[in-house]
């Protein structure tokens, strides 16, 4: 298990590195990525990220919601969901035309009842976004959405860098009670983390070097003794990462959250069982 996570991470790191090199050579153009040829890009990603494994049509098994046109390319809401009866254990979100296409990879905890995760991503060009779900038996299911947005990655991470630096690592957990349509079997919560999640795609005009990326790479969200989900993240997760998710409603338990970023800073926070 731990070995497969490690393999996944190094693969993602490789994709990330390739992406950054490409971005450094051709400055983000904000141009509209044409739809023709998009398939080639995706096929390349299937090879690089998923070792060329065959993928099944994910309709009804995994689903992805995203706006057709983003209001703010630095904050594009996306919702990943799974059919709870299909034993999907891992969800990988790929933004095909982003400089580092793998936005995040979520591993769902056994028996945690997580069927839906909403987050916000940066989108750098008109692009397909793919969601790949991996079932317990290793089968991959894919679905996608086309999103019109541009410039989200190269946009500075923060509207107020000084304020962002002061608040890094703060966390907030909101609880919404019973999740919609769950018949009371699942509750819903939102975890928010203050972090610039800097994409590293801004150039320092004095040194002409790219400012180093600084983002959350690992996140674990647990409730009591049970892991709800873990995430391996990339530069495409928006500043101040937010995750709204459902989970099996049972006895009250405290939440434990741990995040690690690219500078090996660790942010941990416990939220009591009954806090609102």
């Amino acid at each position: 298990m731990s070995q497969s996570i490690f393999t996944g991470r190094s693969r993602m790191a490789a994709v990330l590195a390739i992406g950054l090199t490409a971005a450094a050579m051709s400055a983000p153009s904000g141009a509209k990525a044409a739809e023709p040829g998009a398939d080639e890009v995706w096929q390349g990603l299937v090879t690089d990220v998923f070792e060329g494994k065959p993928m099944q049509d994910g309709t009804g098994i995994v689903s992805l919601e995203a706006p057709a046109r983003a209001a703010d390319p630095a904050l594009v809401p996306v919702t990943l969901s799974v059919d709870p009866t299909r034993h999907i254990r891992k969800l990988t979100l790929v933004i095909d035309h982003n400089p580092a296409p793998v936005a995040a990879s979520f591993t769902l905890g056994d028996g945690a009842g997580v069927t839906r995760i909403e987050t916000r991503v940066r989108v750098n060009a008109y692009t397909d976004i793919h969601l790949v779900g991996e079932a317990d038996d290793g089968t991959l299911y894919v679905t996608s959405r086309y999103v019109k947005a541009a410039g989200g990655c190269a946009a500075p991470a923060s509207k107020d860098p000084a304020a962002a630096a002061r608040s890094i690592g703060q966390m907030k957990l909101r609880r919404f009670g019973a999740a919609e349509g769950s018949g009371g079997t699942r509750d819903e919560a939102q975890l928010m983390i203050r972090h610039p999640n800097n994409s590293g795609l801004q150039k320092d005009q004095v040194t002409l070097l790219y400012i180093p990326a600084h983002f959350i790479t690992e996140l674990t969200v647990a409730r009591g003794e049970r892991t709800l989900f873990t995430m391996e993240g990339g530069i495409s997760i928006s500043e101040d990462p937010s995750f709204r998710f459902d989970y099996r409603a049972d006895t009250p338990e405290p939440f434990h959250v741990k995040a690690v970023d690219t500078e090996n800073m660790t942010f941990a926070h416990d939220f009591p069982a009954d806090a609102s």
Partner: protein
Amino acid sequence: MALCTPIEGVRSVGPAALAVLMSVFGSVPCACAEDTLAFDEIAPHVYAHAGAVALPSSENRGDTSNFGFVVGDEAVAVIDAGGSLPVAREALAAIRRVTDKPVRYLILTHMHPDHVFGSRIFKDAGATIVGSAALGDALAARSDTYLASYRDQLGPALVEGVELLPPDRSVDGSLTLDLGHRALRLQTWPTAHTNTDLTVLDTTSGTLFAGDLVFLEHLPVIDGSLTGWLKDIESLKALPAARVVPGHGPSVAPFPAALEPEARYLETLKRDLDADIDAGLRLENAAASAAASEAANWQLFDAYNPRNATAAYAELEWQ
């Protein structure tokens, strides 16, 4: 009173006081050569140009922001640079029809391209660029993005040669510049429209160049902090100014009355989003409806309100 180009009317904001103001001072008399921009003399020795209330395009050549200049006994200060090199060049020509005194300062009110893309013209004319202490970093971080997006919007020809020049002299707090018996008081502001907001008060005439801390007609754009902006509006009201050059809208408007429309919009947006967040509404649903009651009051509402609402939701959910 010949105008180089009509002042697109004085527009809806201007009450009677404004009409009087305009008729007293009028606009820069000129022979109406094609290559000068229209500046209104909004107070003695104080001039302002009203850019189009529109998205930047090749048709308007990036002339979509307001800017102006003040003439002292010894020198001229230009406040903001216009949204392209041709627009700035024509502004400099307009200044030269008024005075041959040196352009000593170019003061930038914030980092946005529509206000800074013409900088090089004034720098080449000998001006010292003055701006917020946060301006250099803010421009550097956005340079590639701004140039790319303006190439798309204006076409590459109008962006050729544009340099996002950092300030030669930076302000953190306040600074007074003397143009010769004419003091300009510069002041930076806590993050509001952007994190680089700076205002210029001409103390002689009581004219405030507010940059984009004041929007009229053009929907306010939030690229900083909604709550910060609402706080700044309260402080702005206390400034000893009788009139303001807003960043967008007419060239001049009465002050502090000109703050009212944007305060109403920003408060409405905040109230709607606060209620949505309390009710557990998701970002995309909240952003689709927030401040809808303000739609009829502004131009470019559909172009900017969804983005304002999205960014403001992410800010307010932490409150």
